[in-house]
């Protein structure tokens, strides 16, 4: 326990009562009462509790900081917490921007992996997980699990070509690789491979097959304006058109609620 001179206290009769002392010790230490000037202070360093001596006993100081740790440490912790929150918010905003850019075609390089943002909610689900497809074969019919989404986008990675992708429609529940116009752009007979997950082929599912008087959309704006309520139980299929090689294919469904 340390003791330091502090200041002079004037008693009620106007005379100095002695030099108050400042004691520093542990809460387990016995606080002295003999020969201690009135106004002395005792600081418990293990509890950050301060006592004042009123001339006969030690009285706990009422206006002390009750949180543990130094004020600097507390401020540092609070600032760090605030910065972390801001950083998280910035990341969410960046994700929202990437969703908009990707959907609008501004960003054609990456498919966002995101689950929620304000009025738009999106999910990315891997519906075909690096499936190996024999030459001339297909993936079989894979259910997209559509419920009440506003839009469905398909992100495709393949390492062989040619290849085709198709999906069932309101009037054709069993898709084949021979018709791909229910997607925009047309999913039939693609001759480009997409091996980088960040550079996948992307298709918007229309929900129906443009035919006859209803011409195919010529750009993504037209395609989106033609969207109708999506049918349930939509299935997708990918066909390997290569004559000899096994194709690897991954398909992700980007589901959007607006």
């Amino acid at each position: 326990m340390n003791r330091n001179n502090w200041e002079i206290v004037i008693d009620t009769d106007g005379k100095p009562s002695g030099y108050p002392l400042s004691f520093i010790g542990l809460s387990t230490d016995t606080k002295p009462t003999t020969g201690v000037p009135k106004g002395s202070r005792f600081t418990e360093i293990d509890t950050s509790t301060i006592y004042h001596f009123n001339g006969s006993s030690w009285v706990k100081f009422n206006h002390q900081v009750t949180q543990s740790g130094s004020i600097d440490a507390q401020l540092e912790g609070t600032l760090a917490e605030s910065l972390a929150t801001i950083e998280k918010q910035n990341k969410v905003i960046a994700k929202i921007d990437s969703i908009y850019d990707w959907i609008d075609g501004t960003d054609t390089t990456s498919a966002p992996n995101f689950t929620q943002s304000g009025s738009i909610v999106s999910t990315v689900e891997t519906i075909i997980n690096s499936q190996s497809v024999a030459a001339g074969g297909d993936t079989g019919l894979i259910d997209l699990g559509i419920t009440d989404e506003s839009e469905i986008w398909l992100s495709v990675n393949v390492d062989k070509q040619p290849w085709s992708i198709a999906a069932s429609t309101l009037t054709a529940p069993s898709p084949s690789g021979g018709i791909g116009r229910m997607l925009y752009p047309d999913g039939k007979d693609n001759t480009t491979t997409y091996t980088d997950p960040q550079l996948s082929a992307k298709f918007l599912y229309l929900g129906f097959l443009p035919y006859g008087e209803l011409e195919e959309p010529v750009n993504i704006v037209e395609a989106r304006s033609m969207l109708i309520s999506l049918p349930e139980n939509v299935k997708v299929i990918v066909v390997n058109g290569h004559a000899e090689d096994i194709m690897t294919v991954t398909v992700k469904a980007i589901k959007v609620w607006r």
Partner: protein
Amino acid sequence: MDNQRKQEIINNLQNIVDNFEPTEEPELTMFGLISRYNSQHDNPELIGGDWVEENTDIDLPK
């Protein structure tokens, strides 16, 4: 598929994982693993990402 063949496939997959060098791709994905497996080994069982996840400890982003 017998256990010997299964272990052979797992060993081949693990070799691809162990020898991957981030040159054109920053990290190995499940697609990259299966694509490499198909180009380097016979794959009559048509094993893909689901098989890898169910039968090995290899954990790669999809």
